């Protein structure tokens, strides 16, 4: 009897339940569809229409007809490829050092890696102008060593671009590799040692293969991000090494050829997707989520993968052979004495490499500081004299102060909007067992993966039709789109660490769901929420790409003001502004990190 009743009543509550489970996701999804999916799709749609709005391939034929664009694509892929290679080669030892260090040492190393990641992107690029320029620190070093000039020109060419891009993207590579290395059981290399493996063998045969998913994921993220770069090549490169994003900007900014810009954007997007596809065939996209144990290992050898695995095995054999010969040589010079401890050399070498890499990452930004006090009216090294005039100039300029105020307000609003949309979504994604959870999470994070320049151009076009160009509202909405993934990631991490039994305890003690949320859950995750807010704020505060397009003439923000200054003339005023921004942003980030640490421990 009761069974019959319950069956009869089933459908209605179930439908209601589904809605109850999903509705917190809705605002975030609707927002992204409206301000991310729709504009991007529209821009791409534009590229297959001719002037009269009929379907046509004219823009793509133009793309194919001129070798210029394929050349640009080739340059872009080449620069991205070299950047990826250097990021992985230099980042791996550093990531390994961090993963195998303990406690405070490790925490500090991580902070040093992330510090440049957070200092304003433009500030870092300017730092390289100071360091690599004709009268920069590096050329001074060379002349001190007796050379008239550095053997190669370091700025305004491919070398400059690569230095700047490797510097910009290496933290991303290190952090991604680290997330996989952290999950490698420390007992495995030790087990290999007790089973008779030398240090080198244990590393190459056990640790290295297990860390490969991290290397692959880092490579993918760095490569995809590098494809969309335009600030670094514009500031550190020459007119010859043009990247694809620069072409898009040129089409939109100077030629107002939206459709063709859409076609070039499509080219960029397709390149990204091809890379994703190849990656998925090789490693599986699930490795991006930081999974170890290599889901790839499961796969039967086939095609590309079999070839890759063969090359990998060969490489490992060669490295093992080299390590063995090296080990034997060391043993011959310094025989092992069972009665005396022998400090392993390799660890010291690793520290030296790691610290050198960290220096490369963290130091440049600090060189901007002395320049900002220089009495010279150009950025050069070493700075002359001491003056506060540049700070005075910046702080008394209505343009700079206005930009600062606007950046601040836009940042607060964008962060608040991103929080409002992300918090309910993150709750659902962490706590509910809903269908398509992985896909939903991927969708909310997708603005991270699509090249930023594409979002910016698409939003510009969209805004131009709804009258949002040059408005603060448009800027806030755009920044909320790119800040949302960071907020979702941070809040999901905090919620995963949250002990659900606390909520259950509150319910059992008589609190309603709302009371529990307000009096137990939210107070407990408050530091985490604040950290997410600060990350979102900094993302917006440091954002240039979208600001460049949608903020219009007078509605300038700090990064845009810095950009305009850099394009017109590079004066120490810029260094002064950079210094101020650097301290402001670093301060915010340190607070956010401290808060997050408090929230997750």
């Amino acid at each position, binding site marked *: 009897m009761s069974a019959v009743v319950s069956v009869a009543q089933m459908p209605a509550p179930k439908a209601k339940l589904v809605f109850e489970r999903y509705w917190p996701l809705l605002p975030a999804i609707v927002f992204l569809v409206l301000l991310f999916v729709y504009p991007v799709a529209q821009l791409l749609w534009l590229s297959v229409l001719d002037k009269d709005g009929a379907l046509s391939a004219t823009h793509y034929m133009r793309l194919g007809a001129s070798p210029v664009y394929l050349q640009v694509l080739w340059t872009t892929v080449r620069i991205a490829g070299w950047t990826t290679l250097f990021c992985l080669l230099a980042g791996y030892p550093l990531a390994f050092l961090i993963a195998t260090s303990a406690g405070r040492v490790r925490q500090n190393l991580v902070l040093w890696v992330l510090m440049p990641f957070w200092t304003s992107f433009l500030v870092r690029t300017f730092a390289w102008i100071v360091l690599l320029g004709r009268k920069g620190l590096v050329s001074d070093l060379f002349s001190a060593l007796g050379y008239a000039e550095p053997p190669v020109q370091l700025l305004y060419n491919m070398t400059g671009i690569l230095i700047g891009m490797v510097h910009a993207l290496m933290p991303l590579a290190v952090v991604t590799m680290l997330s996989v290395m952290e999950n490698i*059981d420390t*007992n*495995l290399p*030790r*087990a*290999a*040692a*007790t*089973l*008779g*493996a*030398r*240090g080198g*063998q244990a590393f190459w*045969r*056990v640790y290295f*293969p*297990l860390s490969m998913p991290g290397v692959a994921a880092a490579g993918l993220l760095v490569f995809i991000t590098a494809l969309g770069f335009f600030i670094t090549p514009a500031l550190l490169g020459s007119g010859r090494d043009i990247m694809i994003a620069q072409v898009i900007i040129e089409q939109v900014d100077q030629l107002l050829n939206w459709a063709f810009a859409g076609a070039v954007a499509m080219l960029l997007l397709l390149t990204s997707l091809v890379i994703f596809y190849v990656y998925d065939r090789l490693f599986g996209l699930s490795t991006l989520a930081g999974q*170890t*144990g*290599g889901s790839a*290992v*499961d796969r039967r050898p086939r095609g590309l993968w079999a070839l890759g695995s063969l090359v990998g095995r060969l490489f490992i054999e060669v490295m093992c052979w080299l390590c063995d010969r090296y080990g034997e040589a060391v043993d011959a010079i310094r025989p*092992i*004495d*069972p*009665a*005396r*401890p*022998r400090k392993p050399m390799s660890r010291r070498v690793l520290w030296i490499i790691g610290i050198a890499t960290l220096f490369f990452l963290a130091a440049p930004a600090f060189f901007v500081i002395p320049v900002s006090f220089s009495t010279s009216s150009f950025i050069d090294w070493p700075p002359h004299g001491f003056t506060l005039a540049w700070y005075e100039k910046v702080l008394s300029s209505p343009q700079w102060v206005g930009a600062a105020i606007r950046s601040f307000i836009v940042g607060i609003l964008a962060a608040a909007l991103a929080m409002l949309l992300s918090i309910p979504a993150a709750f659902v994604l962490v706590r509910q067992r809903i269908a398509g959870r992985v896909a939903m999470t991927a969708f909310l994070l997708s603005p991270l993966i699509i090249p930023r320049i594409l979002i910016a151009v698409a939003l510009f076009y969209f805004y131009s039709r709804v009258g949002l160009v040059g408005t603060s509202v448009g800027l806030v909405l755009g920044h909320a789109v790119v800040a949302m993934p960071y907020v979702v990631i941070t809040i999901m991490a905090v919620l995963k660490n949250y002990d659900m039994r606390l909520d259950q305890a509150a319910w059992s003690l008589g609190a309603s769901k709302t009371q529990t949320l307000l009096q137990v859950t939210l107070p407990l995750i408050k530091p985490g929420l604040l950290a997410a807010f600060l990350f979102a704020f900094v993302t917006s505060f440091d954002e240039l790409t979208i600001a460049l397009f949608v903020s219009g003439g007078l509605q300038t923000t700090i990064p845009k003001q810095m950009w305009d200054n850099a394009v017109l003339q590079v004066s120490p005023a810029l260094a002064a502004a950079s210094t101020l921004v650097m301290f402001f942003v670093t301060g915010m980030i340190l607070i956010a990190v401290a808060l997050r640490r408090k929230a997750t421990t």
Partner: protein
Amino acid sequence: MHPHLVEAARQKETSRRNHFASVCVGAIADPETITSLDGHSMEKPKSVKLSVRSLRKAYGAIVALGDTSIDLAEGEFLTLLGPSGSGKTTLLMAIAGLGLPDSGEVWIDGKLATYLPPNRRDIGMVFQNYALFPHMTVAENIAFPLRMRKTPEAAISREVARSLEMVQLPHVADRLPRQLSGGQQQRIALARCMVYQPSIILMDEPLGALDKKLRDRMQLEIKRLHTELGVTILYVTHDQEEALVMSDRICLMNEGRIEQIGTPQDLYFRPQTVFAADFLGESNLLRGTLTEVGPTLAVDVPGSGILRAPRPLGTNADFVTGSAVTLMVRPESVRALSPGESAENVVEVDLRDRILVGQVTRLYAHLVGGTEVVATSLTSPSNDKVEPGRRLRLGWSIENTVALFDRSGLR
């Protein structure tokens, strides 16, 4: 202490006499002195496989391991038992070469190995989480140590097959470790470290991650492999039952020192310190003052008068009357006395509680001074005679009493 623990300890005593011979019992620092009880089963004296001499290790001001010496004979199963932070893992890591000592010596199979890297030590190690290489198949995992030793490939596949047979898992050779159950992974870890026949196998809480039932099965499995292959095993655990069931000898550790080393029976029936008495099994501890030293020791325990204990064996120290002594008696040795009945040691108590646990019934009682005394007896209808809340006399024999002196008071 469950009764089957005591049973396990007793069984061990018997099985040792029958099979394992007392080579493993007692001090074996000098192989020359080792003789077998049933001489005919032994061809030659067993050699010392591991010798640890005055090993020390400190982290800053914290002494993790203070001047420790220990020897293992060939084929012996020795367990390092102790609470966390007692130094057992530090000792194990120093032997494995994974954590270097500050001073002292480690000899493995007659060769000095104190500061040799792990791969030169001829040891095998089984880790708590198995430490199987997740990217290699089971067969590749087992072949790993042989490949490191440059064994010819033909011999490798033969040996791998043989060791898979040995752990009764010949069908999993091509699987990845995570496709196996916890118990199977543990067996593969055992096979991987037995395949190259190291001088000594170190096991770091290898059963810690398994559930109770599987742990019991694996204990027997490890014992079987130990006996069949005659390997020498140094085993680390904090589980006293595991230590009693498996070991030839137990080395009880506390605060970076060896508290007591001996057979499971030694530790259970003849603990030398309060810590040893307390850590293994349940014990009643009665603090008192030594009043008379004769064939037996007489101790004045406040609230219960004079109690007697045998002179501890193996202690040559002078017993000074007036010094503090703790008397230990196991609950299963204590019984409730009926009116008029007498025993060698008798105390008057208030019975607080009587609890039927199953096979046994426990009596919780208090001396006049408040010290708790527990008596355990096999459950029978006659237990009902003693009612909680009444005064009662408890008694036990001198033989079952152990006098424990403070470490500083003697020696």
